[in-house]
């Protein structure tokens, strides 16, 4: 019998494969609709966003988005996507803050710190948080997510989207696998900056959505949750997101006080 491997190699050209379908049109239309409402929609946060995001998806399909920038951070990929139309947030449902915003269970700062493996940073500029929420897997990010709520602070108007002045959300970014994203409208500006040695982005202007791909590869959408000005920082592998009706100076001052 002749050598087997050359025979197998020659056989490759003789196989009657099914015709390869042209996948380009279908892929094109699907990637043009970046608001993905898959993954685990039983979670309160995602359920909150679901109705509005479905409407938004319909609007987005009509447009061809173009990526504005992809920036590699040390630990986390930040992914900005420029779109022509950003979904409009739906009115917040009634109920406790944590439930309305899908922040997880209410807890204390000490308990939250005890439950997660990373150091929860707190901005001293804002004083003690009024409420602390913790969301652990499977509903939260792979290593949990902690949200500090600052209900009302001087000179920082309460945001209509949340009903509070500032939210500080922290989650651990896993190496390589994570990327955080913002879907940006035409009126939104993005500025990269460094605060106390931590790289970050200041996103300001019109409403924007937020989504990320967690360490388990699950696509998580936080659309409609908070669409005000945002400062995102990579603090030693922990993503710290400071959101509210803040000026850039206020956001930087808060970020500089993280400890």
């Amino acid at each position: 019998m002749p050598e087997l491997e050359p025979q197998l190699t020659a056989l490759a050209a003789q196989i009657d494969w099914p015709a390869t379908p042209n996948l380009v049109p279908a892929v094109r239309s699907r990637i043009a609709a970046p608001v993905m409402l898959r993954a685990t929609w039983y979670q309160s946060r995602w359920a909150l966003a679901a109705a509005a995001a479905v409407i938004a998806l319909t609007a987005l399909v009509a447009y061809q988005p173009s990526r504005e920038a992809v920036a590699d951070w040390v630990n986390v990929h930040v992914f900005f996507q420029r779109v022509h139309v950003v979904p409009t947030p739906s009115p917040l449902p009634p109920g406790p803050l944590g439930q309305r915003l899908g922040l997880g269970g209410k807890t204390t700062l000490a308990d939250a710190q005890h439950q997660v493996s990373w150091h929860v940073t707190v901005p001293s500029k804002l004083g003690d948080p009024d409420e602390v929420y913790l969301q652990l897997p499977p509903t939260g990010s792979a290593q949990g997510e902690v949200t500090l709520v600052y209900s009302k602070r001087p000179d920082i108007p309460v945001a209509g989207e949340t009903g509070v002045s500032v939210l500080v959300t922290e989650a651990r970014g896993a190496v390589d696998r994570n990327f955080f994203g913002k879907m940006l409208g035409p009126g939104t500006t993005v500025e990269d900056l460094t605060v106390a040695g931590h790289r970050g982005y200041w996103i300001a202007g019109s409403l924007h959505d937020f989504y990320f791909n967690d360490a388990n590869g699950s696509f998580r959408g936080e659309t409609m949750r908070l669409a005000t000005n945002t400062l995102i920082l990579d603090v030693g592998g922990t993503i710290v997101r400071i959101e509210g009706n803040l000026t850039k100076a206020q956001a930087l001052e808060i970020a500089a006080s993280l400890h």
Partner: protein
Amino acid sequence: MEGRPKDESDLFARAQRGDTAAYEEIVQRYQMVAFRTAYVITGSAADAEEAAQDGFVKAYRALGSFRSGAEPRPWLLKIVANEARNRVRSAGRRHHLELRLAERFRPGDAAPSPEAEVVAAEDSRRLLDRVNALSEEDRLVITSRYLLELSGEETAAALGIPEGTVKSRLSRALARLRGTFGEVSRA
């Protein structure tokens, strides 16, 4: 086998920057190997199409995790093959895949190409019959490596196993395939 042109990394870099036309070119370039890989895993052209499509969409969402300078085919094939395996798992069964020779290579035809001249048509049919009759594990590794013409790294990505395991599994599968020919010869 689809080539690896020099502009490949540029294509991925452009796609990462949000150039959807570049990504469409990537899909165009790799859809055949992606579809066929999914077909080998699922045994169904319809499932393979859906798996390949889902895989390309997921890959697009994950472009930020694609490292500059890395080989794109293993990266893409891993995503597509995962989708294909998920479909097999969720369906609870795998379609029986039986590869066939293209019409022009059926026994009795004149040899139309250099490849066909290497192996006589009847030998090709017998060889393919024996590949089809192998165990799932043997068939997958031989089909991936030789019939899909994947590299060792790509085969590992497609099958979700380490490259070293590909080598050992391939070696055993080839030995078993040789054995079946030996049995036929002695018969």
